[in-house]
């Protein structure tokens, strides 16, 4: 019964609506502006807290990400869907993850945050979303032409457990080395004392919302990239309705919470170099569509045992480290010194992958 509900139209709509309520609430409870949930930004903050990059304004071990993976793991076990699998071109997924992150950080947000920025009144998000759709559109072209990353194989349980265990390890680190007010470091973890990394909802609230979203999204297969891809590729509106529900409900919630501030300039953690808002998200959208899921979906897949999605996640975290170490990430002042070059290189790499991974799979048997 419950299983059928989540696979239904109203199932995906209610999950989108749930996220649409709780992301703005997380912002009210302390998360940065129009960043109630941002998978890319939060993974970047995790890279920062671990010292993989030293941008001191974006270092925090975001419990939402941990919750996403563990919530999905719980749901997958409860509904007997945990299936350890791996081996579908992991290195390609790693590279796609890294460049998806770099593209997202040029725009300053993943597809999730693009929607929340829009729902918060940030007009620059429109350019990001146009770029996202453009990137996904290019990706669907490759899919139609036979692009695929090959089959995954069933594998040992531990393969599926590794990313959830890494998340449990991160949570343990956070409990062992909790933030000390005004201190940039606690034990081995770095904590921002200014900037977006210093803004966060209380740990257990963030973790709780993360777990709930993880459970619901695993059940409903919520995906912000699949939403547009299925619309373009199959004229299917199923996943798209989830994203529409998210945006509308987040907009209304922002109105109620007085968090809706329409405009283009001085938007929180955003810049107005629109060409690169588009460009960054073209790269991210293309990379996500070549990898088969938005950054949130990759976390949920990793939670239900998909080792290849886990590699994509690690690719994203690595990409974030490069983005800040090499000056690729944007800031409210505009794109980073090497951001444009990174987008161009990323697009070339994604096109290369798209054109070369076109082996036809025999559909009639292995």
């Amino acid at each position, binding site marked *: 019964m419950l299983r059928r509900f989540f*696979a239904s139209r109203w199932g995906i709509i209610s999950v989108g609506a749930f996220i649409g309520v709780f992301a703005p609430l997380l912002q009210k409870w302390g998360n940065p502006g129009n960043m109630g949930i941002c998978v890319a930004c939060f993974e970047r903050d995790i890279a920062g807290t671990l010292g993989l990059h030293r941008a001191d304004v974006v270092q925090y071990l975001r419990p939402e990400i941990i919750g996403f993976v563990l919530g999905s793991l719980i749901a997958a076990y409860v*509904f007997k*869907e945990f*299936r350890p*699998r791996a081996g*579908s071109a992991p290195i390609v997924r790693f590279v796609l993850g890294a460049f998806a992150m770099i593209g997202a950080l040029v725009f300053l947000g993943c597809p999730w945050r693009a929607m929340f920025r829009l729902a918060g009144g940030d007009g620059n998000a429109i350019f990001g979303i146009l770029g996202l759709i453009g990137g996904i559109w290019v990706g669907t072209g490759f*899919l*139609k032409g036979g692009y*695929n*990353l090959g*089959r*995954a*194989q*069933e594998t040992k349980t531990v393969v599926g457990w590794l990313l959830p265990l890494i998340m449990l390890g991160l949570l343990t680190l956070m409990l062992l080395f909790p933030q000390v007010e005004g201190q940039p470091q606690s034990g081995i973890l770095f904590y921002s004392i200014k900037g977006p990394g210093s803004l966060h909802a209380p740990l257990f609230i963030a973790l709780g919302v993360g777990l709930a979203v993880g459970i619901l999204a695993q059940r409903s*297969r919520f*995906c912000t990239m*699949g939403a547009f*891809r*299925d619309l373009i*590729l*199959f004229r*299917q509106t*199923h996943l798209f309705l989830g994203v529409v529900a998210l945006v509308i409900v987040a907009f209304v919630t922002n109105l109620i919470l007085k968090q809706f501030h329409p405009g283009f300039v001085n938007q929180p953690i955003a810049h107005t170099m629109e060409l690169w808002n588009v460009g960054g998200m073209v790269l991210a959208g293309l990379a996500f569509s070549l990898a*088969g*899921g938005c950054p949130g979906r990759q976390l949920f897949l990793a939670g239900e045992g*998909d080792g*290849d999605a886990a590699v994509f996640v690690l690719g994203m975290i690595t990409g974030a480290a490069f983005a800040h170490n090499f000056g690729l990430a944007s800031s409210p002042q505009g794109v980073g010194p090497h951001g444009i070059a990174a987008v161009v290189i990323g697009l070339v790499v994604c096109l290369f992958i798209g054109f070369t991974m076109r082996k036809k*799979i*025999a*559909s*009639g*048997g*292995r």
Partner: protein
Amino acid sequence: MSNIVDARGLSCPQPVLLTMEKIKKVKKGAIAILVDTDTSKENVSRAATSQGWKIKGIKVERIGYRLMIVKK
């Protein structure tokens, strides 16, 4: 039975793409689709239904499911 689509191990949206390809090719009759995840089972069912095919049965296999879809 020659109309088999083996989409096991393939990630989204390949199972749906392969099913649609087969549907376009055979136009009517029966197709068996092998998938390995519940997500693929749902996606393929949804896609087939939208093309006017009926889900005749879903069998649990050692790995995943075997979906039988038909159109007269």
